[in-house]
Structures are given as structure tokens and as C-alpha cells.
């Protein structure tokens, strides 16, 4: 996937990641994208090196009485691609709101 050829959906997903939304369900909710788009897009971004993933610490999840989540974070290449996508789609910032509180 070339950074210059990101689709609008993928650009929106990367914008959500850059704003601190970290896991599939949360990204799906904030972007309004269908689940059939979000999860395969996350895999593709991870394969292409724009995103990296890690598991949440078990203790943290245990404290909140829920299973540990898999978090996705933009890599350096991902951040550059996201900046390019924001230039290409200037309205993205209005479509995805800033993350204010940590999702329970």
C-alpha cells in the first residue's frame, strides 16, 4: 500500500489511530466505518508496516474486569502517511473527534 494512494476509509482509520483510538471496536465506533472494512484494513496496514500492534498488560485489563485488548499504534511510516492523508483529505479532522477519555 503506497502512502500516496490511501483510500478515504483507510485515511479515516489512520486519523483515528493518530488521535489515540487504539482497538478495532473503538475505531469502528468513532469512524462509523463497517467492521468488514476496519479489521481487514488494520491487518493490511500492519502487514505494510504502517501500524504495529501489542497486547494490553493483563494486570490493567484485570483491574477493569475485562479481557485484554490488542492495541494498534501508528509507526513512524504510518504517521508520515497519516500526515499526507490529512493534507489530501482536509475534512478528516472534522470527521474524527479528538479522544477525550479512555474507553472502558
Amino acid at each position: 500500500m503506497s502512502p500516496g494512494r490511501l483510500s478515504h476509509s483507510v485515511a479515516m482509520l489512520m486519523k483515528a489511530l493518530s488521535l489515540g483510538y487504539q482497538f478495532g471496536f473503538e475505531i469502528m465506533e468513532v469512524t462509523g466505518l463497517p467492521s468488514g472494512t476496519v479489521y481487514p484494513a488494520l491487518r493490511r496496514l500492519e502487514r505494510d508496516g504502517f501500524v504495529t500492534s501489542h497486547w494490553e498488560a493483563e494486570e490493567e485489563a484485570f483491574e477493569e474486569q475485562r479481557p485484554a485488548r490488542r492495541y494498534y499504534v501508528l509507526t513512524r511510516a504510518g504517521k508520515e502517511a497519516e500526515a499526507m492523508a490529512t493534507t489530501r483529505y482536509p475534512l478528516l479532522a472534522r470527521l474524527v473527534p479528538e479522544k477525550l477519555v479512555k474507553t472502558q
Partner: protein
Amino acid sequence: MSLREDCLPIHERILPIAARLVPAARRPEWRREWQAEFWQLRHRDGKRKTNPKEALSLSHGLLADAAWLRVDWVRVSAQGSASGCLWVLAVYCLLCAVVELVFVGSWHSFARTLAGHFTGGFVFVAVPGVFASIATYPLRPLRCDEKDLPHASRLSARLLSRVSARTRWNLFLSAKIGLTLALVFLFSMVTCLPIRAAIGTRADWLELLMWAVLVTTGLRWALLNQEQRCQRCLRTLSQPIRVGPPSRNFLDWSGTELACADGHGLLHVAEMQGSWCWYDKWVELDASFQGFFTA
């Protein structure tokens, strides 16, 4: 019946089915991730309720995710593999044959046209071409004599693991040459179809010329492609690295090294062939090198 009871079965039924699509190595992590996602749906906003429509929508994502992982795994496994190469050639042959069949109209005419063109000219070009190519092909001695094929889990792989490396190598080369010749034959016929419609039987000369060029090119490709494959798994070699200074050709070795992505060996391709290296040198790597190649 509560909403939760309505929705849980969707998740419980689809997750194991979709998990079978996911490659085995990634399955436990994938299940864990999706269980966390479904938990999030059930416990959103502190409520322990699930909208069935939303559960169904998330199940769609679950299936799409599993399917994507499977397709990507197939793509990566087929990339550069011997079976992938044969499949691609076979599909191209089939496409050319379908175009020809549609143009001539019936199976009978199709068979008659193929037989006519094959015996009427193609064999006179292909047979000497094959003979010349095989005779001048510098057969690299095979170093790999082990019978074990890596990842011999499928039936075809288990059957292939019973034959020696040399037999596998020769079987693949023969199949590739056969399919390449078939593709050249069918492609030339399809390409000459509109020309034949315009200028009649005079197009046969053009077809003959095209056969000669394509048979030579195709066979050369098939043999070069064979040279750049791993002797054990027949996968295309990758990661070319320049080794040695070219200015010291008389004193030291200089050329390119290619590696098997699964760590079975290295191929040394000398920049200049000499009396001491008529062909590329294959160096088998033992199991101690596996750590450098596994992700």
C-alpha cells in the same frame, strides 16, 4: 429471552467457524482478540445488553478478518512457490484456450484447429528448440538429497516428500517446460486470430515466426527460473547481495548471493564464469541457520 441471550449464540457459532479460516499459527491470538472485541460490544456504556443488529455487523467483520488472513496467507505461501508458478501458467493456458474456443465456435473445430496447427508447424519449431535448450543447459549438480519437504502437512506435500530432491526438481522442470510450450502455442494462435481473419493463410508465416521467437524466449525463461530456485523447496530465491570486490576477480570470488527465504541454502552466482565454476554454486544450510530466517 434477553437480548444478550439472543446475541451470544451468533458470536459463539460464528467464532469457531471463522477460526478455521485463520492460519493455525495465528489462530489463538486471533480468537483472543475477537473475544475481547465481543466483550466490548456486550459491555458498552456499562450496560450488559447487545443490539442483535450490531452483533451481526461485528460478526461480518469477524468473517471478513478471518477471510483476509487466509487469503493473505495463501498469497504469501504461493509467492515464488513451484505450485504457484505451475498454476499461473495453467491459468494463462486455459484463458488462451477459452478465447480460441469462443472464436472457432465448437469443440470439434477447436480440436481440429489445435491438431492442425500443432502438427502443421509447431512441432518443427518446438522440438529442435527444446532439444537445443536442454542440451546447452548447464545442469547444476544437486546437493540436496534429503527427502523431507518442509511443511509436509498437505497430502500433495506428503506424496512429494516420498520422492528424492532430484526427482522433484526434474518433475517441476518438465511440467514448467510443458506448460510454457503449451502457453506459447495457444498464445500465438490467439494473437494471430485477427491477422488470419484479415489476410488468410498468409498469417501462417507470421505464426511460425512468432512460435520461433516465443519458444526460444519461453524455454530460456523456464531454465533461468529453474536456476534461481531453492533445491529443497523449489521456492524462488530472494535477497540478492553483492559479494566480493569485482576488481579482484582473479584473486578472489566475486558475484551475487541469493538466499532461500526459508533458510534452506544460498546460491552463489559468479560474476564471471571460469574453468573452476561453470555453473552457479548451491550451498546447503543446516538447521543451525534457521534462526536467521524465521520471522
